């Protein structure tokens, strides 16, 4: 290969130019959020929209923190409980679908996957009704249940694909030693499932944390998750942009933190198992 030819170098520059432009496209809104959140209301104007705040003004963060506090607490309870329950449900289902499939389990898998194609809104109205009749409408319990139930297709699929990569031989020898079904799951499969739990856990955590529509329809105001709180904070006759921006940043912080610290494992997990059937 002639690596120094003019056309090669030209293509090379073009490639990096395209990469840089795309990166800018993805980064600019994040940059704008952070700098605007740190500006004094009086400093927010068109001519300096781009520039770094001076002096840095932290007050909007304190204010947003107070306003969103109760909602943040709701979201933390909701997201952690629903993610943990949902991941275990996925692991149990995925184990059956991958390692013990038989005719009726295949049918159940198809029926579960079908749920992925149903428009959210079609079940929102009756679900509201079902939860109300069961006395679960209004507080976090109903919302947790809703997230666990509608997470079943994706968590089962991700775990099935994950377990497909674990060779059957591992279980076979334990079975020959006389180990029972639940013993094999608990002692052999579960300890090997950590990467699966990381991928599925992050997936569910971000989905549930970010969710808005169910949050607003299935809970009363005192149990509203943070996305709903944020939309109220930003939706009122906000005088300036600094407060909504600070609120937006605080709201997104948990998912940003997870992605920054664990994103590597998450993307790797998605790459190795998500596109298969």
């Amino acid at each position, binding site marked *: 290969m002639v690596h120094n030819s003019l056309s090669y170098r030209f293509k090379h520059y073009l490639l990096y130019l*395209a*990469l840089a432009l795309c*990166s800018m496209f*993805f980064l*600019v*809104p994040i940059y*704008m*959020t952070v700098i*605007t959140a740190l500006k004094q209301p009086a400093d927010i*104007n*068109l001519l300096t929209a*781009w520039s770094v705040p001076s002096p840095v003004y932290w007050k909007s963060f304190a204010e947003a923190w107070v306003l969103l506090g109760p909602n943040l607490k709701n979201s933390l309870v909701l997201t952690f409980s629903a993610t943990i329950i949902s991941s275990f*449900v996925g692991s*149990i*289902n995925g*184990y*059956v679908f991958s390692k*013990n499939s*038989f005719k009726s*389990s295949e049918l*159940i898998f198809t*029926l*579960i996957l079908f*749920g992925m*194609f*149903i*428009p*959210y*809104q*079609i*079940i*929102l*109205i*009756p679900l509201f*009704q*079902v939860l109300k009749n069961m006395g679960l409408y209004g507080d976090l319990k109903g919302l947790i249940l809703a997230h*666990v*139930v*509608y997470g*079943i297709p994706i968590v089962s699929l991700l775990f099935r694909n994950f377990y497909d990569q674990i060779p059957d031989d591992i279980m076979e020898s334990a079975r020959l030693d006389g180990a029972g*079904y639940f013993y094999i799951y608990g002692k052999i499969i579960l300890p090997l499932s950590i990467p699966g739990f990381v991928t599925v856990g992050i997936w569910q955590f971000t989905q549930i*944390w*970010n969710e*808005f529509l169910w949050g607003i*329809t299935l809970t009363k105001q005192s149990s509203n998750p943070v*996305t709903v709180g*944020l*939309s109220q904070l930003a939706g009122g006759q906000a005088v300036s*942009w600094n407060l909504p*921006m600070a*609120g937006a*940043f605080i*709201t*997104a912080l948990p*998912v940003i933190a997870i992605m920054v610290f664990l*994103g*590597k494992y998450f*993307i790797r997990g*998605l790459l190795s198992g998500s*596109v298969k059937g």
Partner: protein
Amino acid sequence: MKQSNKKDALIFLGPTFLTYVLFLYIPILFCFYLAFTKYDIISASEFVGLKNFTRLFTYSRTPKIYANTLKLVVMLVTMHTVFGLFLALLVRSLAHGTQHVFRFLYYFPCILTTASVAIAWRYIFNKDLGIINYFLSQVGVDAIPWLNDPFWVYGTIAIFSLWKFAGNAFLYFYIGLGNIPITYYEAARIDGANPFTVFKHITFPLLTPTIFFVVLNLFIASSQIFDEPFFLTGGGPGDATRTLNLYIYETAYREFNFGYSSAIAISLFVLLAVFTLIQLNVSKKWVNYDY
């Protein structure tokens, strides 16, 4: 499979499957029932026959809402597929270590909170304060009403949607490109094929299963589009960006007309099922599964 294992497996599956039936399949049936009633939560539901459906087909607002949804589906499926593939081709042409950086960066917005980033974009698209109009003014272009003009709001939704969700299509294409055996490319290089020939005769045909998967996913997701109009435009100006899902939500939770809302939901569900079946059938003609 031994019989006892089957029983154990069903013990594992049973509880989750039952809750699934209780909270998914029964609500779906209930939705079909509601579509034939007049119901506002407070008073008991009242059977009205096909009235909700006749209203749906005769009400002057509905054609516009179906057309908006269709317009967004066509626009977003095309743009996400092209942009996602473009990003994947860019990143795949890099050295392995560098790929990870861009893979992370381009996927990142997908995990961000929509409610949060919508605020950032509303600021960026702001007619008087937004940086897009600022840059346009620097090159002598008049301020564009990104959020208040029936034509430009579609541009706004497209830009926002690509920023927020293009990472999904990108990641699928990135995986798909990685699955193409490298030997094909080596053979092409030895034959001295130029990049366009390589794309046309190797990359594209071998990528058709991924393209189909991405298109179908995008179709299902964008026909249910809700977040973009809800957070950016509220369906406006007028009905300009009111989508089916937004309309379903509004008739149910703002007008408390649950029967009519269920009828619209069913129409969306039926359209979705029909189009998905058509796509599955047509796909046999162009998707290449044997390599």
